[in-house]
């Protein structure tokens, strides 16, 4: 954590951390404590009076069927996004690791989605699947499959999963490829001498050796799906139809800014914060351990 060799204490380190600490205090600690405070209050619709109600907001949330459903939906959504994105990029990375020429070109081509904003990604996929005039949706219709994600909940979920997973492929691909390329050539050669075919080599040598990368990416993908897909959902489905694609982050926003239920929204924020902190500590422990080796 601290360098063996370091400078002695003086005023300097305090000055160095000050900007970040001040910003953290003002824009994180203060809002976070506000959220915690508000999560313990019930405010009337005009914000004129409020009442301290302890954990009633939380109790209400967990007794609310819709919230529980949203929770489950978020888990499902994250799992689908992570699985889809990880498996596609794993296959692509394994192939890119195998070819001698062109690895760099493939990487350059596959890196694009990383740069695209979630909301733009959402817009692109909406265009492709727009009922009656989308390229893919009209194709599906001509095949006899009725597509209308504005009306059908499972199609809407499918679409946001695809859009979210698509955006994450680049990142996963980069890490998988880097992980595979850092495996010593001699190991692969030894396996080849042991007459293991390419597929067997992948499952018995390469895949186990990149487990740490896979694990790291799994956490990153889940965090991404939980918190960074707001733009996609907002532009593709607005959480609909009939809440079919409403995930936790979307609900916080919706209840707070649209529904103006400050207490309930704050309670949801607090729950999300606890979730993130948990995931972060989990991942941090993992990174720390890896660094030591």
């Amino acid at each position, binding site marked *: 954590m601290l360098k063996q060799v370091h400078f002695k204490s003086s005023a300097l380190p305090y000055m160095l951390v000050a900007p970040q600490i001040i*910003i953290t205090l003002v824009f994180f600690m203060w809002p976070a404590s506000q959220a915690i405070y508000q999560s313990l209050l019930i405010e009337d619709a005009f914000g004129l009076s409020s009442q301290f109600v302890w954990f009633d907001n939380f109790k209400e949330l967990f007794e609310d069927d819709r919230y529980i459903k949203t929770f489950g939906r978020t888990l499902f959504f994250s799992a689908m996004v992570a699985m889809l994105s990880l498996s596609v990029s794993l296959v692509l990375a394994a192939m890119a690791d195998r070819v001698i020429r062109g690895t760099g070109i493939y990487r350059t081509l596959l890196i694009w989605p990383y740069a695209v904003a979630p909301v733009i990604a959402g817009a692109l996929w909406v265009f492709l699947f727009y009922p009656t005039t989308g390229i893919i949706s*009209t194709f599906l219709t001509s095949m006899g499959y009725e597509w209308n994600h504005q009306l059908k909940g499972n199609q809407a979920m499918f679409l946001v999963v695809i859009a979210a997973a698509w955006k994450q492929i680049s990142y996963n691909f980069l890490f998988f490829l880097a992980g595979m390329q850092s495996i010593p050539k001699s190991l692969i050669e030894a396996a080849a001498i042991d007459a293991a075919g390419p597929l067997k080599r992948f499952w018995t040598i390469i895949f186990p050796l990149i487990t740490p990368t896979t694990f790291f990416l799994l956490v990153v993908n889940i965090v991404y799906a939980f918190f960074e897909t707001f733009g996609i959902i907002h532009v593709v489905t607005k959480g609909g139809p009939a809440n079919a694609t409403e995930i936790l982050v979307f609900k916080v926003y919706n209840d707070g800014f649209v529904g103006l239920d400050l207490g309930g929204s704050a309670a949801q924020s607090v729950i999300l914060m606890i979730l993130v902190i948990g995931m972060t500590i989990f991942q941090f422990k993992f990174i720390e351990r890896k660094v030591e080796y």
Partner: protein
Amino acid sequence: MIENRPVSTAVSHLVLLAGVAIVLFPIWITIVAASHDVARLLEVPLPLGLGDQFFENLKQVVSTGVEGSTPIGIMLFNSLVMALMIAFGKITISLLSAYAIVYFDFRFRMLFFWMIFLTLMLPVEVRILPTYEVVAQLGMLDTYWGLTIPLIASATATFMFRQTFLSVPDELLEAARIDGAGPMQFFFDILIPVSRTSIAAMFVILFIYGWNQYLWPLLITTDKSMVTIVMSIKGMMEALEETPKWHHIMMTALLAMIPPVLVVIGMQKLFVKGLTETEK
């Protein structure tokens, strides 16, 4: 690789090409849609190849703007300001705080570290409402400061620079101390140049992060002159209840995509190296 079997290599290339085709398909269609007029985009079957309206559409979007919205030039400028302020701001404060935490022994060091660390990966989306209220109370709504500073309060960059600094050999500091360099001299003369790969990678990540912000600018800007290009897409799609004007939307989407794509592709080497070496 080991055996040079043409078949298996060909299969690999095929799979990769298929992957690239799928991944780039939406982007290709964006370009296609931006090159046709609106009528063609409502005709089934829809075009898969380029049309001849690209520059016409570009001209319309750039000169007159999309009806009722802010001119593209201003939105691009706002996006650029936001992306650069976030990238430079975050890199600066993170380099400083990571330096303090790694290279100085001082009271409350761990307290500060945990305070910063708690904000790691905690996106604004989670604490959106109270943060909005704080910014409103500070009178920073509809300002560049309000747009950027709250987003600077996250620890990803600090954490990454901390990792980078920890991997810098101790002897460099010792040699610098013998050479008479003070803490700030060591920081500027040695540590920053030595960490430039991470800094470059972080710049790419943060530029894209800033450029692609959506929810936060959506909430905090009401003034039309503060709109960013990424935000504008949603408004355009909802402008009218009828079918969206796809040719303009896709042209705008393209314009919104180009700067971050150029940054990623242009700095690809440094970005990939910095990202995968330090974050793992």
